[in-house]
């Protein structure tokens, strides 16, 4: 029987953007938890040595990297390219955004990643549509091949709404009640852990809200994954 085989999928997700407090850590954390919930353990890097929020929120699952040192650069770039099927997720501190892009260009990282069968996915964060438009264009020009996904984090870009349709690829993060996120932090729970009836959030309503929220976001990650895997199908004559 003839059939088509979907390609493997080893993405490098980089949550990035030139501004602080734009939701990069939340996106990185969501993708990390999406991988874990799918039974895969990603390699995670927190590129904020001053306030390693991703590492803290994931109980040290993310390696903390200081990009201002050569050793830190080696740890990050070589870590991202190390052989293995695990997805990679990077939470890029806004202070390292430009140096990171410079290094990517200088090292021709995107080409090398493609050569080694990694899919580079840049999750671009920002606060205004205009800024995101400019930044997305610049990213596409500077980092190639890579997919730029503009993140509509409704905690930050409240009124953006349908205007995001202008972007070829976008990821929408709806609002979650701040009290739920605060409670998760207080109880030191992961996002997926929070929906567990026994060990998760005590409130059934909160768990339900969290589950719906995660479902909406994870479904989008799943779509991204499927798009990539189906986009690189190979014909198997069987």
């Amino acid at each position, binding site marked *: 029987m003839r059939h088509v085989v979907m390609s493997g999928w080893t993405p490098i997700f980089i949550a990035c953007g030139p501004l602080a407090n734009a939701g990069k850590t939340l996106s990185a954390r969501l993708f990390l938890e999406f991988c874990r919930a799918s039974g895969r353990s990603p390699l995670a890097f927190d590129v904020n040595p001053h306030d390693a929020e991703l590492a803290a929120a994931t109980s040290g699952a993310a390696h903390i990297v200081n990009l201002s040192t050569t050793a830190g650069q080696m740890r990050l*770039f070589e870590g991202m390219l190390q052989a293995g099927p695990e997805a990679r997720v990077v939470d890029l501190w806004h202070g390292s955004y430009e140096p990171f892009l410079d290094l990517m260009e200088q090292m021709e990282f995107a080409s090398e990643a493609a050569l080694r069968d990694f899919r580079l996915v840049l999750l671009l964060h920002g606060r205004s549509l205009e800024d995101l438009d400019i930044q997305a264009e610049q990213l596409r020009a500077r980092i190639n091949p890579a997919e730029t996904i503009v993140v509509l984090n409704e905690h930050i870009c409240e009124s953006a709404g349908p205007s995001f349709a202008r972007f070829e690829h976008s990821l929408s993060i709806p609002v979650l009640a701040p009290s739920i996120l605060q409670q998760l932090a207080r109880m030191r729970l992961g996002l997926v852990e929070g929906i567990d009836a026994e060990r998760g959030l005590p409130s059934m309503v909160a768990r339900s809200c969290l589950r719906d929220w995660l479902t909406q976001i994870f479904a989008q990650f799943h779509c991204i994954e499927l798009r990539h895997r189906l986009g690189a199908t190979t014909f198997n004559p069987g």
Partner: protein
Amino acid sequence: MKHTVILVGADKGGVGKTTTCRGLLDYLIDRNILPRAFDTETPRGTLQRFHPDITEIVDLSLTAGQMRIIDTLSRTDVKASVVDVRAGQMGRTLAALRDMGFLEAVAEKRFNFIVLHVLGPSIASLDEIAETAPFTSDAQYFLVKNKVNDTTFFDWSPSTSKAYFGKVKCAGEITIPKLNEMAYEQVELAGTSFSTFIADKSRDGEEAGHSFVLRGYVRSWLRSVCAEFDRVHFADIMTARPAKRA
């Protein structure tokens, strides 16, 4: 294409002659000008460690060493000879080239002659320029500032600069940019050319497993070095057609 002899020298050690030679050899190969090199750091050699296939160790203070370079210029298919002159031997080497008639042959346009004078960071280096002036009237004379190890150069005042540079016909100034220390160190340890390191190969041609990041640093550094040589039209000087002999 005439044969080009490129003398890389300085009167002081540790100013980066060999690094300049190594960058130059990679540049020439990249521009499809097959070079050979002579390492005058006898008996051990430094340049030879990085370019063993094309480098020969010679003692320029001996006639045999001088013959090894000059008498083979017309015979070889290779069109560039890079000579890494031992520290302190620059003036003596130029005098020897004059005495054996090589500079006269250059004046007759039978060979190209390029001198890369690698400067040290202090004003003492400027005295060297005046010393080489009598020998370089027919040469393309370049001053090289090697900043690979972050050397800072003495800031010459216009009058000081004029006093020294007025004596030589300088074709230009070449700056070798800074290279990340760890990357430089790793290439030293690998003992290969910069381009071999970038290609992630060992001396034996096997996959070396060098750091991706450090290779990236070396790649962009070497690009800058090549851009510097291009800026002063280095390859054009070498590939210029020979003048017809009377």
